[in-house]
């Protein structure tokens, strides 16, 4: 079983071309999203709060991304080839060529190995026995970087087929800077990654500012910057939405949701277990998971 795709952002030329194509299609937008009960010292790489997940999905990328069921549940992202070898109990991934961190350093095998080991240490990659990397040179001068993930032999092949979705929850980080940040990795601006956005500033418990790290890759990605704003409670967030200081906010407070449903200018949408209150005409992207890069008017 193997999955292959052409590189989504293989080289600068394609990226520039896409940028030119979409530049005229829609105007750059800046949006503000509210989060009630935002923890003050949030580590957005490790924690499970919706605000942390939102930053994580905007700022980092993964080898494989979750997609809707029509596409086998996932699509390739930083990997451009994925093969499952049931006889060997292993998965083989080839890293996409030309992928760059937003500090313009190339994605290397050691970054992926570091990130996968980090996720395994946190329990994200359950059932993985060993993770190994190696280079291949199919033709002289063309180096391919491969990762081999070996599966615990006691698990069934059905269980091992869940690996791609586990990889979709494992952010790929630059190893050298992550090692220096140590336990502070994921606090505030402390990360070097290769997502659509980067953290350009923050104020603990109150605000996160994300700005686009590179050219957009689809017409849906019209947002240039996202401000995440913390609120004391959902009522305060609803007031902010009505007064126009935020464009959407996450809440699970029943009373606030009921109020929002009665307001003709507002709309309530669901993404997984989360409810989002937003203005009518503001698009929430959740396919099947949260996609902050595609939030837009």
């Amino acid at each position, binding site marked *: 079983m193997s999955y292959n795709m052409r590189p989504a952002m293989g080289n600068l030329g394609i990226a520039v071309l896409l940028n030119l194509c979409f530049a005229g299609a829609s105007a750059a937008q800046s949006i503000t999203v509210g989060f009630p009960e935002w923890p003050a010292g949030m580590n957005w790489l490790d924690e499970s709060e919706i605000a942390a997940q939102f930053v994580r999905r905007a700022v980092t990328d993964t080898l494989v991304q979750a997609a809707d069921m029509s596409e086998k549940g996932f699509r390739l992202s930083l990997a451009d080839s994925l093969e499952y070898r049931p006889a060997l109990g292993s998965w083989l991934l080839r890293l996409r060529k030309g992928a760059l961190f937003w500090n313009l350093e190339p994605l290397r095998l050691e970054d992926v190995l570091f990130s996968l080991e980090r996720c395994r240490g946190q329990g994200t990659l359950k059932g993985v026995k060993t993770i190994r990397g190696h*280079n291949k040179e199919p033709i002289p001068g063309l180096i391919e970087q491969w990762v081999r993930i070996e599966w615990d032999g006691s698990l069934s092949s059905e269980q091992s087929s869940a690996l791609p979705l586990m990889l979709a929850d494992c952010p790929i980080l630059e190893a050298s800077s992550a090692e*220096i940040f*140590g336990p502070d990795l994921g606090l505030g601006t402390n990360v070097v990654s290769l997502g659509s956005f980067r953290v350009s500033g923050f104020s603990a418990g109150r605000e996160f500012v994300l700005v686009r790290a590179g050219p957009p890759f689809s017409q849906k990605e019209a947002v240039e910057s996202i401000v995440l704003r913390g609120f004391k409670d959902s009522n305060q967030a609803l007031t902010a939405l009505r007064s126009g200081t935020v464009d959407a906010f996450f809440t699970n407070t029943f009373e606030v949701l009921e109020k929002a449903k009665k307001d003709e200018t507002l709309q309530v949408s669901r993404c997984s277990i989360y409810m989002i209150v937003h203005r009518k005409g503001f698009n929430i992207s959740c396919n099947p998971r949260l996609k902050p890069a595609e939030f837009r008017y």
Partner: protein
Amino acid sequence: MLRLLFIVSALVVVSLIICNTLELRAYLAYRRALATAQFPSAVNGQEARPLRAGVSAFLKLPRAQQAQALSLAHFAGAMSWARQESHLHVVSLLSQMLEETADAAKRLRLYCESLSQLGQALKKDKLNARLMIRWANLRQLLSDFECEERFTQGNYHSVVAEALLLSPSDMQVKYAAGLILLWAGEKTAAYQLFKEVLSLATYLAPPQENFIFSKVSDAESLRALVPARFPQIERFSHYLKAGSALPAGDAEREELNRELSLLQIDAIQASSVDFESGRLPWEVHFKHLVSLLPVVADERARRELDTELSRLSAKRGQDGLSRYLMERSRLQELKIIACQSAGDTRALKSSLANWGLKQTIFIDEFFCSLGFYLGPGQTPRLIELHSAKERGTHARLPLKILYSDDNQKWSEAPQPLQPEQFDLPPGTIVVLRPPAEYHKYWKVHYAGAARERTFGLELGSGLKVYGRSTESRWGGK
């Protein structure tokens, strides 16, 4: 008696003339065969390089005429009085035919024929080491295969040894001998020859040097291949830093780095001994040491380098630089991750972001902040800003040091800053002395609205911090 002697001499001369004429006629016949094969310009137009022109024309001949031309060339070479060039000419033709032949049996036959021709050439020029190496190369390639032709039997080992004995200073012979032994699986002997080539060659083509460097895969091969001397050690350090030869495993990489550090230290000491004994001028020794600064393997080698540079600077009366380098040699280079904040007008409140960028920035430009993150257990003593520009005057820049533990609330270092400046090729170093306390986030802030843009530095390598570390993961004790 005299008449008899005259007659014998005349006979010898005549017979020599006849022999040469015969060889010449055979060669001319071969050339005619090429010339009449509808490619006269390829032969006639390049008389200055008849061999290449001949080979080129030869390849364009139809198969039947190729065979005819080759047999004529063979005939020219087969004369017992033929010159060695005739044999080498045949070898060139055969090697061209080899490139176009995929059939294994035919290739073996061509190899045997080439080997025989080289053997015949060697017979006529017995002391030609390069010919010996060519013969040994083909003999090694054919392994145990027995050719029927003349001069194809023998041991390539002894021929290689003889060639090396005959031309001990010919580095091309040595390099080729190394390749033959490497292909024969005799790594130790091959590496020994490569090391000699690296040590002694006054010029080595970059692909040859890179080929030798590419054989370094671990600490053992590094020891075996790279000599502990300048400029070889500096060139290899650059090659390794480019990432081409790094082994995959962390442990192997660390071991390789440790070994490289030892080699660098040995090279520094060897250069120092040469300088002290008067064999090396001050300028050359200084240039050696400075060339190693950007590619120094680890802290041990860096300290050794700083100590030697300090000693050397003192000899030229550069007391300030000497004292500074001695101070730096006693400190550890701390692991940081740097960033820049342009137009940082609210320096006491703004957070640092965009970590790890490696672009060139100008510190003396509109409230620019240069920031870094310091891992736990590290106390800074010196902050170095490296300007690529030599002899700049940056000591009076309005620089401030700010620190923070949460990247939000910042404090300014209390004591006034007196930046020091030293010229150390290829640029200038500006040194700041921060408070000796641990904080996670640091800023060097240009407190001015001017846009001077005179002090440019590369963010990845232009900012260095030295101090003390208590954590083992940063290499501290």
